[in-house]
Every structure is written in structure tokens, then in C-alpha cells.
């Protein structure tokens, strides 16, 4: 029934449309856009309040604290990745699209990463400075965060898809996802710590890159399968 003047919708167009829609939605609700970043900032503020303000000690702990805060910010924003779309039925419709599902999911995850992990990495120097980290080390935190958070987004999307069916899935989600996040956390925080001591972090970065490549290769398919599963429940 498709008339002859209709052109096939390219996968690229579908991908861009999904990406654009996600970004529009987030930009329209400002507080959602700034969300992970604000949460990150708030958690960073909590540490000195809870641990006491000695600058020397804070600077020592800074890479680890920043990584833990970033990880929590990613985690918190993860539940929203599919849930809204699930509740109003647009996820169902996305999965009914004739396009292959994995790339469309990558578009959603990419949007999520841009406003969470990428934004965190971009602003991390500010927080590094506030915690008294020497400025030579700021970039180490930023680069490990950017690389690591992309892996976190991808891996997290699987768990987010699996817990969709659960009403308040937030907690189950953290339970599923945090164990998967630990390798990234250990290497990320470890690399930033190493940089603080002046060592080269190239091998760590290479390893994190490899983790990202694997996640990019496998996670979208796993997420698609998980989504089909929860949608048919």
C-alpha cells in the first residue's frame, strides 16, 4: 500500500530522529537536563560535610569521591532512560518500528550519556578544583570519567530495560547495575589516583577503551532483547 513516491526511511534518519527527540525532551525540561550534573554537585558537597573539611585529606580522597559521585549520578538518571516511554506506550511503538532495534536504542543511550556522563566529565574540573585536587590532575579525572561513563550508560541500559516491569524499579536497578559498574569504578578511580602520583595512565585508558568497545558491541542487543521481554509481560 505504500505509494511509489514514498522513499524508504533510512536508518540514519530514524537514528537522528530518536536522538533529536530525546534531546528536545530533555532540553524542554531544564531541570532534567541539568539533573545528573546537579546531583553530582550535591553529592560532592555532601562529602566534606560528612567527612570534615581538612583540605589535605579531601585532596587525597578527591579522585575516588568524584568517581563515586559520578557513578551515583549516572545510576540515578538511569531509571528514566526507558520508564517514561514505557509508561506512555511510546516504547511499545518504538519496538514495533520496522527498523532494527539496536541502533535506535543506541540513539537513546547516546542522548542519555550526553546529558549525564559527558556533561559530568566536562564540568569535573570545577569539582576537582573545589576538592583541592592539583590542577595537573584535572584532565585525568575528566578523561577517565568520559570514557568510563559511556560504558556505564551502555551497561546500565540493559539493567534499566530488565527492571522496567518492576513498578519502582530504582532499587532493583541499582542492585543489578552496581556490581557491573565496579570494574569501571576500580579502573577509573585507580587511573585518576595514579595520575595524582605522577604515573602514566595510558594502559588504564586503553583498558577502559576496550571495555567501552565491548559494551558498544554487545549491550544494545542485550538491551533490545530485554525490552522485548519486559514489553511482553
Amino acid at each position, binding site marked *: *500500500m*505504500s*505509494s511509489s*513516491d*514514498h*522513499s*524508504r*526511511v533510512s536508518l540514519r*534518519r*530514524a537514528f*537522528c*530522529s*530518536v536522538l533529536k*527527540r530525546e534531546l*528536545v*525532551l530533555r532540553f*524542554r*525540561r531544564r531541570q532534567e537536563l541539568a539533573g545528573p550534573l546537579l546531583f553530582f554537585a550535591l553529592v560532592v558537597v555532601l562529602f566534606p560535610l560528612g567527612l570534615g573539611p581538612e583540605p589535605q585529606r579531601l585532596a587525597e580522597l578527591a579522585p575516588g569521591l568524584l568517581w563515586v559521585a559520578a557513578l551515583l549520578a549516572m545510576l540515578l538518571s538511569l531509571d528514566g532512560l526507558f520508564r*517514561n*516511554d514505557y*509508561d*506512555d*506506550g*511510546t516504547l*511499545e*511503538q*518504538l*519496538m*514495533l*518500528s*520496522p*527498523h532494527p532495534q539496536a541502533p*535506535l536504542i543506541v540513539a537513546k543511550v547516546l542522548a542519555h550519556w550526553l546529558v549525564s556522563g559527558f556533561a559530568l566529565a566536562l564540568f569535573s574540573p570545577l569539582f576537582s578544583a573545589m576538592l583541592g585536587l592539583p590542577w595537573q590532575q584535572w584532565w585525568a579525572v575528566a578523561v577517565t570519567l568520559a570514557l568510563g561513563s559511556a560504558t556505564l550508560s551502555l551497561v546500565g541500559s540493559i539493567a534499566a530495560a530488565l527492571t522496567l516491569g518492576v513498578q519502582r524499579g530504582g532499587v532493583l536497578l541499582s542492585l543489578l547495575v552496581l556490581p557491573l559498574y565496579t570494574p569501571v569504578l576500580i579502573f577509573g578511580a585507580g587511573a585518576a589516583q595514579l595520575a595524582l602520583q605522577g604515573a602514566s595512565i595510558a594502559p588504564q585508558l586503553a583498558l577502559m577503551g576496550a571495555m567501552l568497545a565491548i559494551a558498544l558491541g554487545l549491550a544494545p542487543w542485550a538491551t533490545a532483547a530485554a525490552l*522485548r521481554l519486559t*514489553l*511482553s509481560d
Partner: protein
Amino acid sequence: MPALLSAVGLGCERDDRVLFSALDFSLEAGQLAWIEGPNGSGKTTLLKILSGQFAEYQGQLYWQGEQLDRHARALRGDLLYLGHHSGVKAGLTALENLAWYQALAEYRAPNAEQRRWQALETVGLRGFEDVTVERLSAGQQRRVALARLHLEPRLLWILDEPFTAIDAAGVKQLERWIAQHRDSGGAVMVTTHHPLELSGSVGHIRFDGRGGHHVEL
């Protein structure tokens, strides 16, 4: 020519209750099937199975003569499914919602933008195109979903209670659109508890709510 969609020995049970079993039917282009039955008899479940969203069933399904795998990818480009959830994103405007649907479709009309405006005009949302959907009434939100019927031609419409929240004039219109689609060679499967008043031939699949069924296509 093989039938568009056919089922052989289809059966499904949920929570140890048989909803239907040994269901056979075949739907041709230009046919309409009204799926009837009391609450909880399995209409939604059937539609989810046919659209490839629910895989726990017995029996075989065929789309244009080829067996459907459990994920029904072959079918998706030709299918328009409208479920209990309207599939409309509250934070976007009506136009943006439709644009998203166009990009997810298999084919694209050359005048895609104009079509969006026309579709909204057709469902009576002129003047509400640029309001985010959350600020519309229940019926207006459903109408945004119904605008999809006018976006791209799709062979098979699967509509699960499309009349929900639609006012009397809207119901009349929608009935006309359904009949037109059937008459122009499309196929329709629809559930509704509202008495369907259609010109032309209407097929039935009736569930009795106790596991029995009756097909008349």
C-alpha cells in the same frame, strides 16, 4: 494470493486460565475483524500476540503466507498498532509526536511535514498543534494518537479500543476512517465495547470469556 494474516491452532493461557485455544482464522486485504468479548476474555492478549509483542502462545501465525517468527519483524513495516496506552509523549507537542512516528516508519512521503498538519487538522486538533500534549484533555490526547492513521498508509491496522475517551462526533469520524481503510484494500482488527456501526461487511471474532470462541470472517 495468500491471506494477509492467518492463524492456525492459536492458543493462549494466562495464570492457568485458558483464554482461547485452537483458534483459526485468516484475514484478507479488504477485510475487517471486530474482536468481541467480555472483560478479561483475551482480546488485548490476542492483539499483542498478532503484533508480535507477546510470545507465549501455541500455534502458528502467517503473514502474507510466510510463517512469522516470534518477533514478527516481517510484519512491522506494514502494521499500525494502537493499544490501551496511547503511545503519545506528554512532553512533546502533537506535531513533534507525529514527526517521530514518521521517522520510525518504513517509508516516507515526500511532503512529510504537510501531512502532519493535515493529519492533525483531520482529527480536529487545529490550534493545538504546538501545545505540549500534557496540556490536552483525555480525549484530545487520544486524538493525537489517532492522527497516526492519516500519516502513512499501512496495510494492517490493529486498534485496541480506539474509541476510548473520544466524543460522539469523533466516534462517527473514526468509524468512517476505518471503513475507508478497509474499502481501499487495507485490513483492520479492532476491539471495542462500543457498538460498531459500519457500512459494509464486518467480520467477527467472538470470545465468550470461558475459553470458547466463534469466528465469522
